[in-house]
């Protein structure tokens, strides 16, 4: 079983257990980026998460966005990178840029 498989299996398990879940996926990267396109992070309503979308620098922000997505039900496309002030705030230390899609799992 690969990393990504086990994340999606966890998503299905959480949903079967009645938990709200949001799934974050790296959809594009520029420059040096610690996690390749397709890397995923899943979050449930309690804030528990599995997987990763960076070397750890934007996970906190992504998890917060994921909790918002769970309550609003609408997906979001997030940009993190050196041109983005938020990225400076959360500190994308690798100097690259990543775009992360966060979607609710129905």
């Amino acid at each position, binding site marked *: 079983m690969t990393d990504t498989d086990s994340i999606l299996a966890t998503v299905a398990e959480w949903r079967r257990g009645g938990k709200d879940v949001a799934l974050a996926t790296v959809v594009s990267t520029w420059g040096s980026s610690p996690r390749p396109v397709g890397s995923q992070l899943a979050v449930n309503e309690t804030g528990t998460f599995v997987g990763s979308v960076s070397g750890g620098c934007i996970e906190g922000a992504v998890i917060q966005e994921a909790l918002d997505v769970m309550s609003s039900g609408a*997906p979001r496309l997030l940009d993190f990178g050196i041109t983005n002030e938020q990225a400076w705030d959360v500190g994308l230390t690798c100097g690259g840029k990543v775009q992360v899609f966060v979607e609710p799992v129905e």
Partner: protein
Amino acid sequence: MKRALLDDLLAAQANGDPVAMVTRLPTGGQALVGLAGAQGDLRLDDDALAAVRVAIAADRSTTLQAAAGRLFVHVFNPPLRLIVVGAVHIAEPLSRMAALADFGVTIVDPRRAFTVRRPFEDLGVLEEWPDEALETMGLDHRTAVVSLAHDPKIDDPALAVALRSPAFYIGALGSRKTHAARLLRLRRAGFGDADLDRVHGPVGLAIGALSPAEIAISIMAEVTQVRRQGAKERA
């Protein structure tokens, strides 16, 4: 993501079917595209479906522009496989490293004296003649075969099956002299230059590896290079 689509994706993975989850950015309509069909609330035209299948074949998740908008194509291929022929010392670190790199690993060795030893009891060894075992497994373009047995009775039949398959990497442990003798035997068995060029030998990148773990690193480095950059011209 709709639950039904997630369940279909998990089922495709359990079946070993190559698929891609296609998402329209940023609004989130989705389609699960396989080699035969597509399902979901996102409609894709033939051009988009063809582009998605190119991404599946290249094993590369990507974004692309289509009539339907900007699409994220998330490729889910069955795991790569590594078949290690010979339950020799190097097989242990090689199997563990390959598993870390998301390969499904099978060790094949018909010699009970080798396979009953720890750690192979833990790793699980197919105790069969490699030609039969490899025929049964069905080697595809996502399979790598590395022979380590140092015994032509075991290595050669495995290499012969690998050469008749689309395996993306074929490697054989042994010195240049051993390798030259091996190529001669394979040539006598009917394989031509194009076949023999597919065998990486001596196996692995030349990084001065000495210990079993270091040799495993050099083999995994070469397997990774071939996977990511394609087979290179070799001296």
